[in-house]
C-alpha cells in the first residue's frame, strides 16, 4: 500500500536542472577565460548575446501573462532558462566592460542597468532566483563585492550598507503595500536584515557607546524580533537573537577583565538567552 502511492521526483528534477545550469555557466566562464584570445571578441560577445536573447525570447513566448500574485511556472525548466539567460547577460556585459571599458569611469552604471533588468524579469516571470540576483547586483552598484575588503567593513561600506538596506526595505515594503508579488517581501527582508545588522554591528564594535550605532542596533533588533513574533517567522528570531547576542557580547566583554569574569558572562548570558527562547517558545505554542 505504502509503496503504491504516487511518488513525486519534482524536487530532484529541479535540483538537477539548477545544478546543470550552474555547471554550464561555470564551464562557459572557464572556456572564455582560457580561450578568449583564440575565440575573439566577436565570437564571445555574439554567442553570449545570442544565448541570452534566445533564453529571454523563450521566456516571453512561453511565459504566462502578468499577474500581481504568485503563479506557477509553465514547466519545471522555465525558471532555469530565465536564470540562464540572466547569467549569460551578466557574463556578456561583464566581458564587454572588462575588455572595452566603454563607459570609462561610469562603469558602475552597468550594474544599475543590469539590476533594473533583473528586477523587471523577476517580477514579470515571478522568479525568486532572478530577484536574488537583482538584489546582489544592486548591492554591487552600492559598492559591495565578494572580497576581504568587504568583510573588513570600512567606514565607507558601513554607510553604504545601511543605505542599501534602507533601499531594499523600501522596495520590499512598496511591493508588499501595493500587493505586487507580496511573496517577494521575505527575500527583500533577508537582504535588508543582514546588511543593516552587519553594518550596525561593525559600528558597535568600533565605537561602542560613543555613537548612534548601539541604539540603532537595539532598535533594529527589537523591530526584527517583533516582526518575527507577529508573523510567526522564526528565522527572523534566530537573526535577532544571534545579532543581539553578538552586540551585547561586544559591549560587555570590552569592560570585562579576567578569565573568571568572562566565564561568568558566558554562563549567565547563555542561560539568559536559553530562558528567553524558552519563554518565546512557550508563547508561540500558546498562540498556536
Amino acid at each position, binding site marked *: 500500500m505504502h509503496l503504491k502511492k504516487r511518488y513525486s521526483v519534482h524536487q*530532484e528534477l529541479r535540483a538537477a536542472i539548477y545544478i*546543470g545550469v*550552474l*555547471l554550464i555557466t561555470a*564551464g*562557459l566562464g572557464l572556456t572564455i577565460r582560457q580561450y578568449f584570445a583564440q575565440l575573439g571578441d566577436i565570437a564571445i560577445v555574439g554567442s553570449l548575446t545570442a544565448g541570452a536573447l534566445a533564453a529571454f525570447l523563450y521566456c516571453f513566448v512561453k511565459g504566462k501573462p502578468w499577474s500581481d500574485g504568485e503563479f506557477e511556472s509553465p514547466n519545471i525548466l522555465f525558471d532555469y532558462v530565465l536564470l540562464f539567460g540572466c547569467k549569460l547577460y551578466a557574463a556578456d556585459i561583464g*566581458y564587454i566592460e572588462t575588455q572595452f571599458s566603454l563607459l570609462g569611469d561610469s562603469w558602475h552604471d*552597468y550594474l544599475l542597468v543590469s539590476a533594473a533588468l533583473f528586477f523587471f524579469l523577476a517580477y514579470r516571470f515571478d522568479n525568486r532566483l532572478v530577484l536574488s540576483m537583482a538584489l546582489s547586483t544592486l548591492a554591487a552598484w552600492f559598492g559591495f563585492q565578494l572580497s576581504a575588503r568587504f568583510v573588513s567593513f570600512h567606514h565607507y561600506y558601513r554607510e553604504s550598507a545601511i543605505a542599501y538596506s534602507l533601499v531594499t526595505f523600501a522596495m520590499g515594503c512598496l511591493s508588499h503595500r501595493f500587493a505586487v508579488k507580496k511573496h517577494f517581501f521575505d527575500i527583500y527582508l533577508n537582504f535588508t536584515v543582514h546588511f543593516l545588522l552587519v553594518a550596525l554591528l561593525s559600528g558597535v564594535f568600533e565605537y561602542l557607546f560613543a555613537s548612534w550605532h548601539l541604539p540603532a542596533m537595539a532598535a533594529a533588533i527589537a523591530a526584527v524580533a517583533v516582526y518575527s513574533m507577529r508573523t510567526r517567522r522564526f528565522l527572523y528570531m534566530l537573526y535577532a537573537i544571534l545579532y543581539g547576542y553578538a552586540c551585547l557580547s561586544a559591549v560587555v566583554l570590552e569592560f570585562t577583565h579576567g578569565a573568571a569574569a568572562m566565564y561568568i558572562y558566558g554562563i549567565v548570558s547563555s542561560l539568559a538567552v*536559553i530562558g528567553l527562547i524558552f519563554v518565546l517558545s512557550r508563547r508561540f505554542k500558546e498562540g498556536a
Partner: protein
Amino acid sequence: MSISLYTAEQEERLFIWREARAWARSGLITDEQMGGINARTDPGLNRTNVFFRILFFLFTGSCVQAMIGFCAFVIQIRGEIAIAWSALAFGAAMVGLAEYLVRRKSLYRYGIEEALALSGMALACTGIVIFIFQLHMELRPLITTAAMLAAACFFWLYLRFGFLYAAVISVACACVVPFQLSLPPAGERTIVAMVLAIIFLTSIRAEGSETRDFRKERSALLQACLLAGIYLAVNLRLPELGRAHFGNPAPFDQPHAGFPPLFYWTTYGLTFLVPALGLYLGLKRRKRIVINISLIAALLTLATNKDYLGFEHYAWDPAVLGVVMVVAAIIIMRWLANGSQGVSNGFTAQNLLKSEDHGINPADLGAALLPGAIQANLPPSSPEKPFAGGQSGGGGASSGY
C-alpha cells in the same frame, strides 16, 4: 528490548504528524482534518521549531563550555589524571542531565538535551582516552582505541536518544580504525568499504513489510549515510576533483593514483555500480534520501571519469556535464509526462507536497552569489585594448569605486 528513551508509539505518532503537516501545507487535507490528526497524534513530548532548536543547541553548548572553563579555573585542575577525572565526571553529569530532561521534561529534539548529550559524551570519551594515554600506549593503538570507544559511545547515544547524527559520528569514528592498522592504502579502503557495505546490507535485510514507517524513515537516512561512506571509500579520484576541473587541467602524473592496477580498475567499476545499486534500491523502496545520495554519487562519478581514465581536462568539461544533467532531466520529464495523468510506474514530475517555506532558501542564496562568481571567471582586461583598465561585472559584484 528497546533502550530508547522514546517509545515506538511516540515516534510513530510524530511521524504521522509530520506527514500530515506536509499534506496540510500542500492543501491535500483541510485545517479541520489537520486538527483531528493533531488531537489524535499528540505524543506527549515537548518539541520546538528548527530555529529555536538551533538556538537552544548553540547556547547550551556555549553555556557548557563556559561552565567547564569556569570550574577548571576555580578548582585549578592540574595534571593529566585530574583532567581525565574531571572530564569523565562532567561528561557523565551532562549525559545524565540530558536523560533527566528527556524523562522528566519530555524534551524531544529540543536542542538542549542534544547539546548536553553530545558534549557530555565527547568529554567522557576524552577523559577515558587520557586515562589510556597514561598506559604509555603507542600512537596508532591509542588512536584505534579512541576511535572504537567513540564509535561505541556515539552509537549508544543514537540508540538511547535517537540522534541520527550520533550514528553518523559513530560510523565515521569506526572508519578511522582501518587506517591505523598499518595496512597498505588499498587494504584500508577495502576494509572500510566492506564494513560499511555489511552494515548497509544488514540494515536493508532487517527491514520487513511490517517495519514501522518511522523506523523506515530513520533507516533510510542511515542507509544514505552508509552509501555515501562506501562511495567515498571506493572513489580514488575524488580528493583531486577541484584541482582537475578548476585548477591544473593536465592528467595526474601518478599512474593508478598510487594503487595496484587491479584495485584501481575495480574501484572504477564500483564508482558506477554503487550509485546504480543505490538508485535502484531507492526507487524500488521509495527512499528519497537514498535516491538523492545516489544521484550525487553518480554526478561525482561522471566528474571523476576523465581522471580515472587519465584523460586531459578541458575548460568546457563542467558545461558538458551540465548539459548532460539538463538533458537527462528533460528526458525523464518527458517520459513521466507521457504516462497516464503525468504518472509513469508510480512516479510523477508534478509537485505533490510543498516544502516548508522559511522565506529564503539555499537556491535563492546561490543565485545571489552568482554575479560575483561570473565576474571571477571573466578574463583580465587585455593591455593591448585601447580602453583597457575598466573593471566591473555585468551583473557583477566586483570592483570598488
